[in-house]
């Protein structure tokens, strides 16, 4: 999402300027708190005046987010936030618009709007809080829940195979795809900055712990013991390195098949070509094919990629829309209501 930055106007805003007067009502310990805090920290950096920032959400625990932001906000209906945000942005292209959604809101009932906003590449930042559960309705499995999950609605285990939000986004042609996690604040903040900086739809999947209905869903990715081996942080132009100090590993592509190989700190052997064979797999966030393969990495055999998987320049919907408006207005002149109403053919009836 491009930033309509007017630094002067927002000079000196701080985190607390972005906190509304409403008491935050998530469960104590919910991962949503960390995300809220990260967003409230990052916003003052952007230099965008508060009145130009809008948070649009659907329904779910995650979707209560706008109430806590001292910006404009709209807590809409289940799954429709991308469509509403598109309309808002078309009404006023100057705005910086965030969409906050959940794995149910964004991928279950709202999957189609998500897909279409991504293909249109509307200049929005979409934050999908993925806790792999329906929180607000008290714990049914979601489209990102693992197969076999026992929940209130699946006492004998769920049957559906889960969706991977990142794969869905790539399949829809997203121009910016990233993944981050509630428990890694610096990573979360940096990912938010990158998302806001992107022009077009920025899709950010945020792994979020629902400590009431799906506690520990991402524990391997956050537990001190395991997290370094379980996560690979993506850095553009750098090899995919992960693992604890002393046990550092890197990824290599054999053909299209990823392999884990030992990694000696500082080594970049053969790291020139993005994903080039022989050498290590080097991250290139502008390469859609590499992003597709990153999205295929599945735990536990492979580490989970975190960070910006893809950042492509692509025509943005709102700008193109306004450009067309300008072009037509230039060619045809500003609308002449009288002429429009008369149409091509008229006749006159005189007083008789």
């Amino acid at each position, binding site marked *: 999402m491009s930033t309509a930055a007017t630094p002067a106007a927002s000079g000196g805003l701080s985190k607390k300027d972005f906190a509304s007067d409403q008491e935050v009502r998530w469960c104590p310990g919910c991962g949503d708190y960390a995300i809220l805090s990260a967003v409230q920290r990052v916003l003052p950096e952007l230099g965008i005046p508060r009145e130009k920032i809008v948070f649009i959400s659907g329904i779910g625990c995650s979707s209560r987010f706008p109430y806590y932001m001292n910006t404009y906000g709209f807590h809409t209906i289940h799954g429709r936030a991308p*469509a509403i945000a598109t309309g808002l942005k078309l009404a006023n292209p100057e705005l910086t618009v965030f969409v906050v959604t959940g794995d149910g809101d964004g991928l279950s009932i709202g999957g189609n709007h998500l897909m279409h906003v991504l293909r249109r590449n509307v200049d929005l930042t979409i934050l999908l809080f993925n806790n792999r559960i329906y929180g607000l309705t008290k714990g049914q499995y979601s489209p990102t829940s693992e197969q076999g999950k026992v929940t209130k609605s699946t006492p004998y285990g769920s049957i559906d195979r889960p969706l991977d939000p990142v794969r869905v986004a790539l399949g829809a042609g997203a121009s910016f795809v990233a993944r981050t996690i509630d428990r890694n604040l610096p990573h979360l903040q940096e990912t938010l900055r990158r998302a806001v900086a992107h022009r077009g739809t920025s899709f950010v999947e945020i792994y979020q712990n629902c400590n009431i209905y799906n506690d520990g869903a991402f524990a391997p990715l956050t537990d001190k013991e395991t997290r370094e081996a379980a996560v690979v942080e993506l850095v553009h132009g750098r090899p995919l390195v992960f693992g604890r100090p002393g046990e550092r590993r890197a990824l290599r592509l054999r053909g299209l098949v990823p392999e884990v190989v030992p990694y000696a700190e500082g080594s970049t052997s053969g790291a020139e070509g993005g994903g080039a064979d022989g050498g290590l797999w080097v991250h290139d966030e502008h390469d859609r094919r590499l992003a597709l393969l990153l999205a295929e990495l599945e735990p536990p055999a492979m580490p989970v990629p975190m960070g910006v998987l893809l950042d492509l320049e692509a025509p943005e919907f709102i700008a193109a829309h306004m450009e067309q408006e300008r072009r037509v207005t230039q060619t045809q002149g500003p609308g002449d209501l009288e002429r429009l109403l008369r149409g091509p053919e008229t006749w006159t009836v005189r007083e008789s």
Partner: protein
Amino acid sequence: MTTSTSPGASSSRGERTPLVSAVVRFAGDSGDGMQLTGSQFAHEVAWAGNDLATLPTFPAEIRAPAGTLYGVSSFQIQFGSVRVLTPGDRLDALVAMNPAALKVHLGDLEPGGLLIVNRNAFDQRNLARAGYRDNPLEDPALAERYRLHAIEVSRLTHEAVAGLGLGHKDAERCKNFFCLGLVSWVYGRPIEPTIEWLQRRFAREPALLEANRRALLAGHAFAETAEIFGEAYRVEPAVLPPGTYRRISGNQALALGLVTAAVRAGRPLLYGSYPITPASDILHEMARHRNFGVRPFQAEDEIAAMGAAIGAAFGGAIGVCGTSGPGLALKAEGLGLAVMAELPVVVIDVQRGGPSTGLPTRTEQADLLQALYGRNSEAPLIVLAPATPGECFQMAYEAVRLALKYMVPAILLSDGYLANGSEPWRIPDPEELPPIEVQQPPAAAAGRFAPYARDERTLARPWAVPGMPGLEHRIGGLEKEHISGNVSYDPDNHDLMVRLREEKVRRAAAEIPPLEVQGEDAGQLLVVGWGSTYGAIRVAVERVRARGRAVSAVHLRYLNPLPPDLGPLLGRFRRVLVPEINRGQLRRVLRAEFGCDAVGFHRVRGMPLAVGEIEQAIEALLDGEAGA
């Protein structure tokens, strides 16, 4: 055709029989160009200063196989020197381009009516496709019952265009202009406007221009010289209020009304729509007017179109979306949000035959209750309905005006007949339209901004939109606290808010002009209509009144809130008849609202009501029979 006074017919008027009005239908294969023929004839008629009303009927198929019954396409027009309010019940003249067209439409032709057929199309194949065992043209009964003219339209057309180097197919396609020329002569309508149109249309295809021109002239000359028509007619110009006129369809008028509202309000207008018959043409029209600040958005579905309109309204633009019945069903949840958020969105429902996919290309007026009640819980909004194609303009404008003034969603109920039908339309001066008031928020909120503080008179909340500094606030679909707009679960607050939302819509009744009653404003029988049945009811009432019987009529353009003077009016009549193309939806509302023992008249045939059947229903009631 540019601005000019109506010159009347161009042919000699010598022995022409004067007519007050006539009903003509052109019918043929979808490939025969009947819509164009009818439309051009309507242009000629309008140019001649007649009043008119048209009724195109398309097959449901895109290109139905040639010669089939279901592939027949037709265009009906009534025109006259008097006010013409309906396309007519029965036909004075029928042009049938093939056996299928004859079979489908003959039943509507008045005995003794003029019947023109293309004899060349009555070959074995076409007869078989239409299910004729024998050639009906050879049945003497046909010529006895109607003034039959079985003309070799195809052959004559081919002869007329010979030498222009056209292929067989292109030559054959000119035969509709032959017929147009012919009918134009019969009714003494000027063909100049058509020639002008051809010149514009085929500016870059001189051969086609010439071919069609020749076919038109050939038909015209054929009628004049062959003298096979026993008589020729003339129809004097109608006495219409002075002004500059154009012919306009309901969908066109609706789009222009929206554009005008956007210009007058000084706001961009987002038109979000997912294509659906018969509303798609509004999208097509709106998409052309980008230089008026119209932002067209073809959404992925009706829910997204609704969402985009809500988002636009939240953002300070006019949010409009257009659809038909099944699409309105999908917008129900979004409309509820707009009611709760008190945002000005306008939803246009061009009603069609249902339920479900139903009869997509046919008209019906059975979405009234859906518009009023088709949402969860108490979610009142404004519902309006234009009465004629031209009126779609002012009611679309009115819908935007009221939505913005009362900060409330509005639904506009058009229908398939209004959408595609057309009539002469006196071009309005936009400046004469009532101004559009926008609920400006306080310049800067002293302290915390209260998004649900209300205007005392209208109960509208302020339209504070993103981008306005100092008015940052959050709204949503949860119940909100009076004034502050914060989420509130307080029981009494909920009851209050439910009442306020209702009261706000009720207050919009102050905007409704006094009802105009046709006939006495008290008496035996009042006929109440809404939407596109206006013309048929009006004419029926006129006719019954002309027979000296006391009946009055009133037409509702405001369905919610209802006009404040409606209740008293109903109370002044002994009986009330409500003719509708549904199973009694307005009737239900009137009974519930006013305890009025209204009787219904319902024909749900996918077609406009006929004047004759309404007349009968009126007479029956006056004679003391129960409603049908």
